[in-house]
């Protein structure tokens, strides 16, 4: 399904390592299964050849890891970024989270990443391997003798179905062609929720948020959550807690997290990807993005380095909070 291959990327990385342009490579390596690919740092070509993978499950956005890795790595780090990842990259630069000079960005095209949950819906549990073959995925499971073939298109992750951009907004070099910013239907689901009655909305979110096990995966993966010390880990912030002794942060965690990244979230969708409970967390972030677009004019975080985020900006005639409600939607 992906137009570029693992070998192409390894060749590129090997040559940049070889000529000393970079000292290490930020990429993906295979986990327990074909589909649980994790970010990894490679320092030699042999490591790359042994462990580096690229395919339909390389959804992980590598930009966040630059914050910690650039502090540890001596030279430049080669990082492979898909179009949507480059927005996070720019946003992190806007917030001075790492030194641009220490990253060497190779922009790679992306045809959309697969969502293992959707594969499971089609093929059942017990998946032992998934490999790409043309525009199909070949899935073997513990329970079926014959591999099952599914269209890659039919198991695309939601964020890729509603892809916002195939254009790289930052790179040092590109592999393949650059794409365009797309007009996506990504806000449709938010609009559907907005059109519900407050009771229905409440029921929806109560159902979703009750599933949360506070594993913090959404926070840990989020490229906007790179705080040196997260408020949720800080005893003096008033919202700290790791054991669920205090019900406050239990309830408010997702609201506070969404607010903290409001105007800075690039809508990369990592939070929903990693949520083990499959809570559609991106719908919280998208609500803020949609509101910001509606109230203050369209703003895409990370589209350009140095832009002023909507929450640290204002105009003299911004909407009043009361007017926000007058603009439509069901009254509570």
């Amino acid at each position, binding site marked *: 399904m992906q137009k570029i291959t693992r070998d192409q990327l390894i060749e590129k990385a090997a040559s940049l390592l070889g000529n000393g342009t970079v000292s290490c490579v930020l990429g993906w390596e295979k986990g327990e299964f074909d589909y649980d690919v994790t970010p990894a740092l490679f320092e030699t070509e042999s490591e790359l050849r042994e462990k580096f993978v690229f395919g339909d499950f390389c959804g992980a956005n590598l930009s966040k890891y630059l914050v910690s890795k650039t502090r540890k790595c001596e030279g430049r780090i080669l990082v492979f970024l898909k179009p949507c990842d480059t927005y996070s990259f720019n946003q992190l630069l806007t917030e001075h*989270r790492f030194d641009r000079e220490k990253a060497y960005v190779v922009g790679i095209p992306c045809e959309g990443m697969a969502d293992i949950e959707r594969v499971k819906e089609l093929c059942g549990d017990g998946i032992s391997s998934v490999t790409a073959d043309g525009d199909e995925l070949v899935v073997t499971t513990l329970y079926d003798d014959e591999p099952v073939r599914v269209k890659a298109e039919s198991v695309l992750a939601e964020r890729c179905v509603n892809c916002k951009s195939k254009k790289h907004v930052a790179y040092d070099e590109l592999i393949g062609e650059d794409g365009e910013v797309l007009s996506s239907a990504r806000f449709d689901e938010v609009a559907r929720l907005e059109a519900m009655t407050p009771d229905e909305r409440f029921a929806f979110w109560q159902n979703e948020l009750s599933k949360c096990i506070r594993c913090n995966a959404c926070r840990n993966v989020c490229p906007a959550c790179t*705080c*040196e010390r*997260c408020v949720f880990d800080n005893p003096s912030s008033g919202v700290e807690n790791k054991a669920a002794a205090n019900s406050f942060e239990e309830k408010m965690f997702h609201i506070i997290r969404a607010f903290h990244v409001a105007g800075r979230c690039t809508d990369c969708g990592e939070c929903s990807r990693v949520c083990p409970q499959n809570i559609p967390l991106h719908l919280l972030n998208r609500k803020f993005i949609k509101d910001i677009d509606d109230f203050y004019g369209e703003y895409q975080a990370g589209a350009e380095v140095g832009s002023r985020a909507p929450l*640290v*900006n204002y105009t003299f005639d911004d909407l009043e909070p009361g007017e926000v409600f007058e603009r439509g939607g069901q009254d509570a």
Partner: protein
Amino acid sequence: MQRIGVFVCWCGSNIAATVDVKAVAEALKSEPGVVYSADYQYMCSQAGQDLIKEAVKEHNLTGIVVCSCSPRMHEATFRKTAAAAGLNPYMVEIANIREQCSWVHKDIPSGTEKAIILGKAAVAKVNLNTPLTPGESPVTKRALVIGGGIAGIQTALDIADAGFPVDIVEKNPTIGGKMAQLDKTFPTLDCAACILTPKMVDVAQNDKIRIFSYSEVSEIKGFVGNFDVTIRKKARYVKEDVCTGCGLCVEKCPQKKIPNEFNLGMDNRSAIYIPFAQAVPKVATIDAEACTMLKKGKCGLCSKVCTAGAIDYKQQDELISEKYGAIVVATGFNPISMEKFDEYAYSQSKDVITSLEFERLTNAAGPTAGKLLRPSDLKHPHTIVFVQCVGSRCASCAEKGKEYCSKICCMYTAKHAMLTRDKYPDTDVYVFYIDVRTPGKNFDEFYRRAVEEYGVHYIKGMVGKVTPEGDKLKVRASDLLNNKQLNIDADLVVLAAAIEPDKSARPLATMLTASMDTNDFFTEAHPKLRPVESPTAGVFLSGACQGPKDIPETVSQAGAAASKVIGLLAKDKLTGNPCVASSDELMCNGCSSCERVCPYGAISYIDKEFRMPDRTVAIRRVASVNPAVCQGCGACTVACPSGAMDLRGFASGQIMAEVDAICK
């Protein structure tokens, strides 16, 4: 753990009538940290204050809660009481049980209950209070005035009068600004030069004032009381201290076809020039763009004729660094460009001019030696049309005009019309107006005189189109009161162009971190109560850089700005408000969110080394708040995603403790 004393005031019957003060004192006794609780008729009285002081000593109190009237009333009083008792004044909190309780609630049970809750909130806050000491910073006793027009001149003179040294930075070769170009001034009609040039001489002769002419500010660092400024003194290729201003070089210079800026390009000057006879400093300047010697290395005539030996073709720009305690912005205004107003044919005809050009045409030192002759053929114009509000009050054309009223045009147009009729009674003078705005002392009388005594035709309506035809200008306009369209054959059309802030103001504002409005006028710290101060501490505003102004207004604002500067420079040390923001460097991400919301530019970033958990060292960018500049609004604390930024005196923990106490 704090040792807190609670003092409940009766305020006579003001509080005691609706709140059971004894019950409040009793209830608060069992709050965490409270070791003493008392009530008294008038806590703010000497006896009440003594009671507090004694309690502090007797019970070793570390914190005080006074349940009384609004902190806006007596917080300062009780802080002084605490200080007198040896406590840090910021260990006092007030529970407002009068204005916000006893006076607005009627029944005793609910009033008492609320008073107890407000008391608990105050106790909860004091438990987290820390002693605060206001920071101090020294004051450099020197002021910088940017801009040498009448605003800058007046400010500098007033500051120097109080005994403080002042530097004026002026980008042109001479000070004087726009006022030096004017002919007469409304409404008294005294000549501008007669009242301005003595002031210019005063500036030159005042030993407290230094003039950096032909210079620009290139860098500003620091904060109130301690600005570090770099001034670029542009090379004028003439030694300022040697040149006598005799003018021989100007006379002999062979390059004489350079448009003269001072006369708005209506005549020419030489490549080496002195802008006008009364220039200060009166020294020549070589226009490097026009000088043959500087361009081609040939000529050198000026050097040959200069007996003083002042010419120096090798002169370079010079960078001067100086420290200042206060900065006054007096960058002034310019008329907007008329190029885009096609309908008035400004670019097509030499006889369509702006009002400032008209000033030069009527000025005895101007291109026509004060005779009103039209630029195209130097004939005396017999029909003159003045058009007001050209580009002012213009909502439709952001790229053409300005939305605001330029304020001065009504009066100067009346002046021009009147003076024209006075000197040349044979001319017909029409003034097209939308409104005539004359709010000022003797202003309306002046305008009425133009109409009634001098016979100026004031027509309510607007000129729609000016078409040059032969040696005439066909003016098509509406006369709204007579419901007629007029077609006038005019000899001269004068446009009252809107005025805008000088282009140098925007980059200057960035250097100063001073805020501007959408029109690039500097904003005041408060539009009514602090009109000559910028929100950035230590930066003051003088003249039209803050908004359109006439001369008397400019002079009075200049004086006001000077008095603010004097007030600042008179101090040896600045004592800040201790309730300022501070950043926890360990938690700071260096993301710049706080810097972007800070209205005062109080936050800067430093690179700092940190030992990481794995014993490596990382260099991180972290925010640092300048307590001398921070005013304590707290905008940064909310913008900060990690919560590294907090506000002393109103810390997140304190506010949340209050919330908890209220909601318990």
